[in-house]
């Protein structure tokens, strides 16, 4: 499968994603510049973390109008897989590819620590190799990761089982102290209705090697790779 990782001005985790995919997981990855169109055959496009356009106005608000986003929206509409991590998640929300918004952390503090996540659904390409209820450990590092959606949107998210990850304690309970940013219902990651666009605040790319304290992030990437391989087989 082929991965594309977009660099926006101010992206800073783009090379972390590239390196984890290529060196740790042996994947084929191409870096993409935000000013270019989305040219080439890709199976999954990653919008990485960072501070695109200096986070001016709102996080992700400007990146949404980057030329490459038009291609990403089309790619997503045609069923392509799109993964937004941290700032990438914020961009996907601003672009309307995911519902809701990410606002300032409830305690106003930038949070940088490992968190526990509970896998809520496994019937998506992003979580296909995981089990419901499985606990993952990954770092978060953000100042504006508090997920917000109104009551009607939340109801829709629950009905369509779009909430894929929740912040939990070590025992798997979604408690208030386990929630690093005040996200509504401890939501850490969610997908669109079509289940091909996934956004999350934690960083799977920073949890792909033992040296970094966890290899759980790799399980997201290998899930995606396995789902793509299965899809390719089905087409043969």
């Amino acid at each position, binding site marked *: 499968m082929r991965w594309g990782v977009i660099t926006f001005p101010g992206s800073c985790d783009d090379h972390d994603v590239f390196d984890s995919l290529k060196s740790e997981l042996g994947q084929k990855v191409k870096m993409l510049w935000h000013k270019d169109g989305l040219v080439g055959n890709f199976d999954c496009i990653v919008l990485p973390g960072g501070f695109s356009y200096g986070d001016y*106005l*709102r996080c992700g*608000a400007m990146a949404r*109008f980057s030329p490459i986003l038009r291609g990403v929206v089309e790619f997503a509409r045609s069923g392509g897989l799109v993964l937004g991590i941290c700032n990438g998640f914020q961009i996907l*929300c*601003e672009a309307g590819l995911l*519902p*809701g*918004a990410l*606002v*300032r*952390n*409830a*305690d*106003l503090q930038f949070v940088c620590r490992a968190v526990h996540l509970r896998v809520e659904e496994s019937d998506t390409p992003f979580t296909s190799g995981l089990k419901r209820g499985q606990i993952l450990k990954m770092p978060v590092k953000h100042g504006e990761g*508090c997920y*917000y*959606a*109104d009551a009607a949107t939340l109801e829709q998210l629950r009905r369509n089982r779009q909430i894929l990850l929740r912040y939990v304690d070590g025992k798997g309970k979604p408690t208030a102290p386990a929630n690093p940013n*005040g996200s509504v219902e401890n939501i850490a990651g969610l997908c669109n209705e079509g289940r091909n666009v996934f956004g999350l605040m934690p960083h799977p790319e920073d949890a792909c090697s033992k040296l970094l304290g966890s290899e759980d992030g790799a399980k997201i990437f290998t899930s995606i790779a396995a789902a793509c391989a299965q899809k390719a087989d089905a087409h043969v």
Partner: protein
Amino acid sequence: MRVKIYVSLKRGVLDPQGKAIERSLHTLGYEEVREVRAGKYIELELDATSRDAAELRIREICDKLLANPVIEDFRYEMDAE
């Protein structure tokens, strides 16, 4: 046309910045202060043939970029120069 745009968080959206300001004001002795909400203020100049035309453009600009309708409301004032 000189335009002043005010972007504020919708009611119901948590405003930790406003809360922090409120706590600070209480610490300073302004205990009568309630419901502090922090927002954004943006000024811009706009060339337009009429007030109606300008208003149409401003609404578009706010909907598309300056405010996020999921979490924010906006209002504006215009002065012909």
